[in-house]
């Protein structure tokens, strides 16, 4: 179905299991960039919502990817809205917890820490468009549909986002020199 991902499955159940194996890390990373509090749990919610809709799937692998990240985007928006309604909580910082030791998950988070820090320095819509294009690997058209904008607007938005990212990198370099 998707070249290089092994999603050429005729059986819907097998397709679902394979889709989870292939896309769940990207969905979880995308939800993490959106500031979702429990990205692992919400990732599973996304796939639970996907399962009944597999019968209506159209568009092949690209359609499957778009459907998955459309659901993930909606869950991220819901999470942001609920976060606004609930009182602010202090984020748990594992680095300050003496009880913890390094785990495989910590190492994985370390490798993504730079990317997460870069995206956090951007405004929300810039972060959103870069996450959908780079992490979710969505096309311009699918990104425009998910963000409810025109393709031209998305093109302009991602250009500005890249310009802002370049400035942030330059500022970081300048701070390192001084």
């Amino acid at each position, binding site marked *: 179905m998707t070249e290089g991902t092994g999603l050429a499955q005729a059986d819907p159940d097998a397709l679902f299991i394979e889709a989870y194996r292939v896309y769940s*890390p990207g969905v979880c990373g995308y939800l993490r960039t959106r500031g979702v509090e429990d990205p692992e749990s919400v990732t*599973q919610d996304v796939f639970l919502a996907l399962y009944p809709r597999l019968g209506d799937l159209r568009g092949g692998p690209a359609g499957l990817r778009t459907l998955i990240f459309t659901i993930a985007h909606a869950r991220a928006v819901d999470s942001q809205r609920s976060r606004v309604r609930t009182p602010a909580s202090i984020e748990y910082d594992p680095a300050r917890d003496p009880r913890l030791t390094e785990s495989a998950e910590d190492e994985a988070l370390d490798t*993504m820490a730079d990317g997460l820090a870069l995206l956090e320095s951007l405004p929300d819509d810039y972060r959103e468009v870069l996450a959908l294009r780079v992490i979710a690997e969505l096309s311009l058209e699918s990104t425009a549909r998910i963000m409810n904008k025109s393709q031209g607007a998305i093109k302009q938005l991602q250009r500005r986002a890249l310009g802002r990212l*370049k400035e942030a990198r330059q500022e970081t370099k300048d701070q390192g020199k001084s």
Partner: protein
Amino acid sequence: MTTSDFRGAEELHDQRIVEDLLTESGMDHPVHAGQLKPALMHVRRIAHGQQPTPRGEFAALLASLNTGPTTAPGTGTVSSLENRRGIRHARLVIAATALCLTAGAGAVAAAVNPDIRDTVTTLVDTLTSAPNDRLPGIPEPVDTPAPAVPVPGQPALPGKAVPGGAPVTPPAVSDQQRGEPVPGPQTNLGLHGSPATEHRAAPVIPRAGVPAQPPELPTTSTPPRHTGAIPEPPPTAHGNGTYK
């Protein structure tokens, strides 16, 4: 395919995604790309995190997909989870029924066994008996039903009808007047000796129709002391044979 080959293919795939984005945005000039490409590769690594460990309902769904057929996708329901809940509910009902039957059988067995029954009876008697507030050595009073006929010494109202009999009149001569001992409680006025020495016998309430036993006679040669009962003055006989 080895791990290094996989990593190499993945790296190439990531570079292609980043370069396509830069080209599409018109920022593929080496001046811009030299700064943006490493940054975008960091962002791209976020997609290569670990697969979340399935939990709860999602884990159950994956397990059911791996073990057996379920409702086809598109029907909008995941029937396998409902089936599991139904099986669990049925197990709970069966376990509760078995527990109730076991408890009932145990109760029947305990009722049939005479040893257990005696033990239970003894326990119930012990728990339900009145507290022992009497002095040791003093027998308990005999529980007697209400007399159907007037007790000697207890005058009934003249002319009052006794159930099941004719109106009873008081006896013409009391037992004391005949020189017979009077059964019944003795009154200690404290005139002779201490109360402990004066209570020689427990009061006995005579049963209806059963003659009261006479009090024990003293075994010593000394004359018996006054037991404290005050003899009533002999009734005065009048000419008409009635007493006042």
